[in-house]
């Protein structure tokens, strides 16, 4: 058994290219998703069309621009300039103040602002909308307080729980963790097993009296170690680079991740038993594991918004449950009582995959 593990480590460490990939991918992915591919809107360029140009509109403008969300691109002079400005693609939003803004606010108690937003990216658009209305609302509220008047309207106050700044890293880290653990564990094991098949060394292993379970365990253990290291790297990165909190118990987090690891590894073994070549194993893990995990696990697209069929499909994605678990532990600080159901699901999936793959792993060549 130890012989197997030692041999496997030799394979891994002597192939320095795959080592680089193994440790490089998680680093790069986490950093990429954390920094570049983000839903947070910063420095969105806007244009202003101020028909009124009075102290109130100036004050609101100032408020908008002093937040780091918006950057003034330019002032427009008439409605006709709005469309060309959008077409050029230089701005994301136009804020239009109606004529006699301050005056109307004074006499009628209300004045109108029109927001025109580029919705080619709906996500960004709704975020921009949220930011702008938020800033304007807080301004009017402040103003009324100062003038000791009762607010004319009821204001809805939203409190963002668990992620008050709506940082997208909080959403991506659990997803990334899931995807990478899946990738490393399932793909690497399936590739390393099929590699033996391809090289013909599996033939030599099989004619020895060693039991299949020992062969499999020997193959899998090194990858458990590697994946655990990678897991630690991701957690440390998310903690210290993105400031992601770990509210819950670290022990629980580690335990759950190990369970998920074992699940991914047994999936990898299963893949290797059905594929004949390394390439097949790689394609299978890419399309059967990676893509659905990324798309259907709730990592990028909220599951609640999917059509019913896809929602059911997402239920059989182990990644979905793991993401829920991680969010519960890291962000909400929940204990095991809150996630026992998800844990049970992953646990039974693990058992299932292990059983099928041991059954399918052949003591012969056919």
């Amino acid at each position, binding site marked *: 058994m130890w*012989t197997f593990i030692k*041999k496997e480590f*030799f*394979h891994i460490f*002597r*192939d320095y290219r795959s080592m680089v990939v193994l440790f490089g991918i998680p680093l790069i992915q986490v950093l990429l998703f954390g920094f570049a591919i983000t839903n947070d809107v910063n420095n969105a360029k806007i244009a202003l069309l101020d028909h009124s140009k009075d102290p109130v509109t100036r004050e609101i403008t100032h408020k908008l621009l002093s937040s780091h969300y918006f950057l003034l691109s330019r002032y427009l002079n008439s409605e006709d300039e709005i469309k060309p400005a959008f077409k050029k693609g230089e701005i994301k939003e136009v804020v239009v103040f109606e004529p006699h803004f301050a005056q109307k606010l004074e006499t009628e108690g209300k004045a109108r602002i029109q927001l025109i937003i580029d919705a080619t990216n709906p996500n960004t658009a709704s975020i921009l909308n949220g930011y702008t209305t938020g800033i304007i609302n807080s301004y009017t509220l402040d103003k009324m307080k100062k003038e000791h008047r009762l607010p004319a309207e009821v204001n809805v106050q939203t409190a963002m729980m668990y992620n008050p700044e709506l940082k997208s890293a909080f959403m991506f880290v659990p997803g990334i963790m899931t995807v990478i653990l899946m990738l490393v564990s399932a793909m690497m094991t399936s590739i390393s097993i099929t590699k033996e098949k391809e*090289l*013909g*060394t599996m*033939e*030599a*292993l*099989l*004619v*020895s*009296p*060693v039991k299949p379970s020992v062969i499999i365990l020997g193959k899998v253990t090194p990858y458990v170690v590697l994946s655990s290291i990678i897991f630690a790297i991701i957690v440390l990165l998310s903690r210290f680079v993105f400031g992601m909190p770990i509210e819950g118990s670290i022990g629980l987090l580690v335990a759950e991740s190990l369970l998920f690891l074992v699940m991914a590894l047994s999936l990898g073994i299963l893949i290797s038993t059905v594929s004949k070549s390394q390439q097949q194993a790689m394609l299978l893990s890419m399309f059967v594991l990676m893509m659905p995990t990324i798309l259907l696990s709730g990592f990028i697209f909220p599951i609640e918004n999917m059509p019913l069929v896809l929602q059911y499909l997402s239920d059989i994605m182990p990644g979905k449950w793991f993401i829920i678990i991680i969010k519960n532990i890291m962000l909400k600080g929940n204990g095991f009582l809150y996630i026992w159901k998800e844990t049970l699901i992953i646990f039974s999936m693990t058992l299932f995959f292990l059983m099928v793959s041991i059954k399918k792993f052949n*003591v*012969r*060549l*056919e």
Partner: protein
Amino acid sequence: MSLAVKIKNVSKSYPNAEALKSITLDIGPNELFGFIGPDGAGKTTLFRILTSLILPDKGTGSIGNFDIVKDYRKIRKEVGYMPGRFSLYGDLTVEENLQFYARLFNTSIKENYDLIEDVYKQIEPFKKRRAADLSGGMKQKLALSCALIHKPQLIILDEPTTGVDAISRKEFWALLKSMQQKGITILVSTPYMDEAALCDRVALMQEGNILTIDRPGQIVQDFSGKILGIKTNQMHALLNDLLQMEQPERVYRFGAFVHLVTHDNPDACAKKVRSHLEAKGHQNIMIQEQPASIEDCFLALMHKPETP
């Protein structure tokens, strides 16, 4: 204690080919037994059945007292197998490979060093080298060491000398002989006819059938007819021109010569051939009677019309 091998009516089909057609074989203990035949003759399939890597469709077999299907665990302990493809880890060193295989069988290099000494000492100077960087002959020696490391009673070698240079081949066969003297039964396959003479007995195989099983000397003796080796200055045209002759028995290229098989008086036949070739414009004609080789016998058996 060396092991005997018995096989009875073993057949094996793949989805698009019949690999073995009811093979029956009896190999005695401590025999050096060769399987000769071209690619696709079924040698590898037979070996995989013997090593319990695949199951026969029909038929039974045993190695010593072990059934090849039921007792596969015991067989795997007693048999050393060297697959046709190089099946060691290229990224491990020579020593690491050997150690790994020793551990697979719960033994160590030290414990069985006396058995592999002859083989291993030839590659020991390179023991820190990675297996992938070895030459073809050395790779095979390493593979043989690995197959021997657990003191098997029987070793099965699938084309161990394919793709190996002539000198290494010779050395390899010398090693096999010395293994035999240590009491091991050896089954070896090869596409090289000249290696057949080195075996105690050989089975000539073709398309899943065994054409004949005998001592190599006996096979050659049993060859019927005489062989004329023919050489001229126009080797390209020679084969075609000979085929045009009346009642040609069998004509085929053989090394630097073209062989013609006849059952007539060889001198009379040689005369006829010479005049025929002279008429066709060949010069420097050289015709000599040559002793039959295993290859000649094999070709003769291959072309023998099926006896109903």
